[in-house]
């Protein structure tokens, strides 16, 4: 028996003739923490709403535990959602909000009472049962919304940018709490965010989307270390992305200089995208690296210096523990392992988004 709990099979969706999801295939395993990551408007919420039953796909089907649930309305699915705007029922107190789903399922009074207590404890909101949603802070409301969804023991919990409205400190705290909650309840989480750090911190698996198309799937580490195209490289963390030409296997020409690398299987003299992480570049003395350039800025970031070195018309971003004097000429070097070579995108869908 496979441990796939949900499968999206060739899902497409357009709004007003505009394609939002384009033949999307996706498998989600039991007990996984999957994150849909991508820029605003790339179709993450729409994908989630199709899973939740709030939108019907134009094409394709949603398979839940082996059964086609594409036509099933949201109230008939064993899936619950935590919405970005909390969406608590304003006329009910916290307890009644949490009990809403259980009452509809005709659970006994004592069962409901126990569940409320358990859920409030789980989200650190003991004693808030009688409060009205309006009297709670954003973070507290979101905790109640999480409790309200979890008490129903859904097979899958969908979370659409649940921390998006919170400030940074609180967001980081809630990220850790969500991971803890996830471990405790053992429910499959499908999480949507446009914040790559959040995705890297929380997920077992990240699905990077752009323009309704999956760009890459994989663990945080594989997405970060081995982006498959320039879009992913650019979106996940900061990167230097520059044009190169593959001379032969394991040799790439960048800015007129040959670099040793580890990538094979490209066409001879094929134009490629080269991705180099800022922390992988090392500053050396002039003439001792592959490239020489002028330091044009240096900013201390706490754990490291962020340095920009201009080599002809390209500005390399470097993270270094040592400072470098602005205006000085330095060399840049890198070990072959840290050079990522990628095919140029075939369609514009995989095109690098320029700095937002």
């Amino acid at each position, binding site marked *: 028996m496979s441990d796939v709990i949900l499968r999206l099979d060739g899902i497409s969706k357009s709004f007003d003739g505009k394609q939002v999801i384009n033949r999307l295939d996706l498998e989600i395993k039991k007990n996984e923490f999957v994150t849909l990551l991508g820029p605003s408007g790339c179709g993450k919420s729409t994908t989630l709403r199709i899973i939740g039953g709030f939108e019907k796909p134009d094409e394709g089907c949603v398979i839940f535990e082996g059964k086609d649930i594409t036509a099933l*309305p949201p*109230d008939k699915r064993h899936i619950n959602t935590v*919405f970005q*705007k909390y969406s*608590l029922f304003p006329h009910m107190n916290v307890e009644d909000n949490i009990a809403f789903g259980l009452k509809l399922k005709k659970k006994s009074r004592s069962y409901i009472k126990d569940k409320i207590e358990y859920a409030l404890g789980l989200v650190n909101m003991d004693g808030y049962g009688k409060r009205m949603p309006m009297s709670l802070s954003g973070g507290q409301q979101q905790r109640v*919304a999480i409790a309200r969804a979890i008490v*129903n023991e859904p097979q899958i919990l969908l979370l659409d940018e649940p921390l998006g409205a919170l400030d940074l400190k609180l967001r980081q705290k809630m990220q850790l709490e969500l991971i803890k909650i996830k471990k405790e309840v053992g429910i499959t989480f499908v999480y949507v965010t446009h914040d790559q750090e959040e995705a890297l911190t929380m997920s077992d698996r990240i699905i990077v989307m752009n323009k309704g198309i999956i760009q890459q799937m994989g663990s945080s580490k594989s997405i970060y270390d081995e982006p498959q195209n320039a879009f992913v490289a650019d979106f996940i963390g900061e990167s230097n992305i520059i044009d190169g030409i593959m001379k032969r296997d394991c040799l790439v020409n960048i800015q007129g200089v040959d670099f040793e690398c580890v990538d094979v299987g490209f066409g001879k003299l094929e134009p490629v995208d080269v991705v180099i992480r800022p922390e992988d570049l090392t500053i050396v003395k002039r003439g001792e690296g592959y490239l020489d350039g002028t330091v044009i800025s240096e900013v201390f970031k706490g754990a490291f210096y962020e340095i920009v070195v201009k080599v002809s018309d390209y500005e390399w971003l470097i993270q270094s523990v040592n400072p470098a004097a602005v205006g000085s000429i330095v060399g840049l070097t890198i070990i072959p392992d840290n050079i990522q070579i990628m095919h140029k995108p075939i369609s514009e869908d995989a095109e690098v988004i320029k700095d937002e």
Partner: protein
Amino acid sequence: MNKRSLWSGPYILWMIGFTVIPFCMILHYALTDRDGAFTFRNLLAMFEPVHLKAMTVSVEVAFFCTVICILLAYPLVIAMKRLGLFGKSYTILVLILPMWINFILRLLALQMILSNNGVLNHIFSILGLPPHELANTRTAMMIGIVYDYLPYMIVSIYNSVADIDDDIIEAARDLGAGSLTVFFRIILPLSVPGLLSGIVMVFVPSMTSFVTANIMAGGKIQLIGNIIEQEFITTMDWHLGSGLSVILMIFVLLSMAFTSRNDPDYGMSKIW
């Protein structure tokens, strides 16, 4: 007085001239007899059988008209929300369009439709149904009243249903609520402010819509408004007319206070 509050001057003058002074005069008439002597007789006259009966009929009529308006308005508003017609500029326009036509003209048209050889009976005869003598009946009057005041109910309910976030309804569906549950547990309780202001806007004028009663019921039914009208216009007993008016006003204010007291959170602010 600062300069800004001067802008409210015209309105204040208007209110003094056409509300405060007339109200004081009515109070004066209500509490005096023809010789100018103080008396409670005009107020107590409400409890004479003929007035009491008119009052009872008025409350009954107003009650049923209000209920009918609610039953017509909610499904319409829900359907509009479902169809995504909310927030479109033309929807409210369509709803309030009837209000732009003088209500007496509307009533006369309605009278033609309901009359014994009017459009309605014509349709009935085509369908092979027996004719209905609706003209000059209580039913006709209530149809007229509902027709007059339904837009107020719709607009009030519409406004407060429009305030309900789609996310909240989706959250309810997500937690297992079907359409009926969504209505009774979410939409209805959250639209109580609009419902209450709709009730006040329909119930109160329904009780006194003597012109509608005259036109649609052919003068056969006496609402409390008709009695008061007759005291002023026909009998020329301004003292008695004023006395009845004051009692009616007290009744209306009490019922409004009662309605909004049941909803301490939002009621008052929206109704007043």
